[in-house]
């Protein structure tokens, strides 16, 4: 379990102060894949660097299991860091070492013998699907392959936790998917708790079990991925979750409803029934399908006329067929 208690981080440059994190408290349970999402400048990278103390919080405490990292001396901190693997957006591989030697690095510094380190590194590279690229240098590998080497390297010391700082942001969509699959497999097979930092909702949707939304250094929303996806409470979360088409239309005279289909009512012709049975002229503003925690969800943003009677009828129908819906009051985003 990773626990942050009232963590704040303030950067001081000349006479300017920047509050990157404000009183962040967070508990990450073992075995979960925890997503931390936010737009750029929200403090995500600072937050993840506070987890292994690459950045030391100005205030607050960081616990890994029962050890308070913020109270450790540098030697103990180094030992503790071996329990926390980390992968980066820019891979950060040693350019002058081949893939195998890169994976050997953390073992070397942990004092593992050369032969043993090599065996372990080979196993790991096999696991990430790079057994035929072991002797290639980073410059000879594609982005996805480099990230696989980085993941193998991060797992070398058998960490309990894996921090991913925008690990897929430099990769194309297909490669992103394959890396996300790999992370999920690592979580399931090795039981490694994974913390994913990203600005992309699809990354969170695809693999995370829990999510926290970070905005201007504060956690404004947190919960299981289903809960946050079904009913995002904050504007920032809504912006990230809603179908993008919606934002093109600005002048809504009616009222907005967001319907989420979890698959159970898919045989029902919902839209047709809204029009035919409830006699509501619905306007589709946006729609999309998302894969949330391995389950397909559809969502649709509809505009209903501003008529209380019609809307009561629609709500009743939606309740009957058990389609999740909520009215949206956001205006002019």
């Amino acid at each position, binding site marked *: 379990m990773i626990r942050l208690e009232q963590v704040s981080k303030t950067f001081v440059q000349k006479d300017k102060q920047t509050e990157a994190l404000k009183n962040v408290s967070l508990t990450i349970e073992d075995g979960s894949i925890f997503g931390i999402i936010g737009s750029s400048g929200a403090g995500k990278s600072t937050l993840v660097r506070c987890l292994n103390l*690459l950045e030391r919080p100005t205030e607050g405490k960081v616990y890994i299991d029962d050890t308070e990292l913020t109270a450790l001396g540098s030697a103990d901190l180094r030992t503790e860091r071996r329990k926390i693997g980390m992968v980066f957006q820019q891979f950060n591989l*040693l350019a002058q070492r081949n893939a195998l030697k890169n994976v050997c690095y953390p073992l070397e510094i942990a004092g593992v013998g050369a032969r043993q380190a090599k065996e372990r590194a080979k196993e790991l590279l096999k696991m990430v699907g790079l057994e035929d690229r072991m002797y290639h240098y980073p410059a000879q590998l594609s982005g996805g392959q480099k990230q696989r080497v980085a993941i193998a390297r991060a797992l070398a010391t058998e960490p309990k936790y894996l921090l991913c700082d925008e690990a897929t942001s430099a990769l194309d969509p297909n490669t992103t998917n394959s890396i996300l699959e790999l992370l999920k497999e690592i979580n399931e097979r090795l039981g490694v708790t994974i913390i994913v930092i990203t600005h992309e909702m699809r990354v969170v949707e695809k693999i995370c079990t829990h999510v926290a939304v970070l905005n201007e250094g504060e956690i404004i929303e947190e919960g299981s991925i289903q809960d946050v996806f079904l009913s995002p409470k904050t504007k920032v979360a809504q912006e990230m979750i809603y179908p993008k088409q919606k934002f093109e239309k600005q002048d809504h005279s009616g009222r907005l409803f967001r319907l989420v289909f979890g698959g159970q009512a898919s045989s029902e012709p919902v839209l047709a029934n809204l029009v035919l049975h409830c006699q509501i002229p619905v306007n589709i503003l946006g729609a999309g399908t998302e894969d949330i925690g391995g389950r397909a969800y559809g969502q649709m943003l509809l505009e209903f006329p501003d008529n209380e009677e019609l809307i009561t009828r629609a709500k009743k129908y939606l309740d009957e067929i058990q389609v999740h819906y909520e009215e949206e009051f956001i205006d002019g985003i």
Partner: protein
Amino acid sequence: MEFSQLLSLLGSGALETLYMVILSTACSYLVGIPLGVLLFITDKKGICPCRILNWILGVIVNLTRSIPFIILLIAILPFTRLVAGTTIGTNATVVPLVVAAIPFIARMVESSLKEVDYGVIEAAQAMGSGNFQIIWKVLLPEARPSLFVGCTIAFATLLGYSAMAGFTGGGGLGAIAINYGYYRYKAGIMWATVLVLVLIVQVFQELGMFIANKTDKRIRN
């Protein structure tokens, strides 16, 4: 002077020059690398920031670097005598060469280390590396190609300095050029030594770049 005499003169001069320059490059790197590393890590953005030490080292390095070599050569004659036992000849020339080259090399090592991607250092820290492990296993190996390039530059610079040492009784090609060309008006011999110097620089430059490129794994060969 006969041609064969000229050849043997230039040959022994070239050997003396190579002896001085290679020895002084090697000696100055022995001190220059640790000094460059220290400059790099004690910087405020380094892995072991220490403002006072960084400032002191910086001032010493800059002071030594701003003294023209020909002045330094004469100024440290007592020190040279103390170390080498004499102030003339090739061994005596090595002393001022090393003194002049150390700060220069330290700066070049520092700038080579600055080329190492900070993300890689951060990754090493995240894996639990200590500062010494970062220097030894990350910084120096990652900067290796750039360090080789720096070394060829240092070599060529020291070659030029060694020729200047000819004025104060240092050996090698510089002494020949000055004794024959400047004092005895034998321009031919002077130009011949210049030609040999050019050849030496050329050979070492090519060799240095070859090693730098060959060992740089960032280049796909």
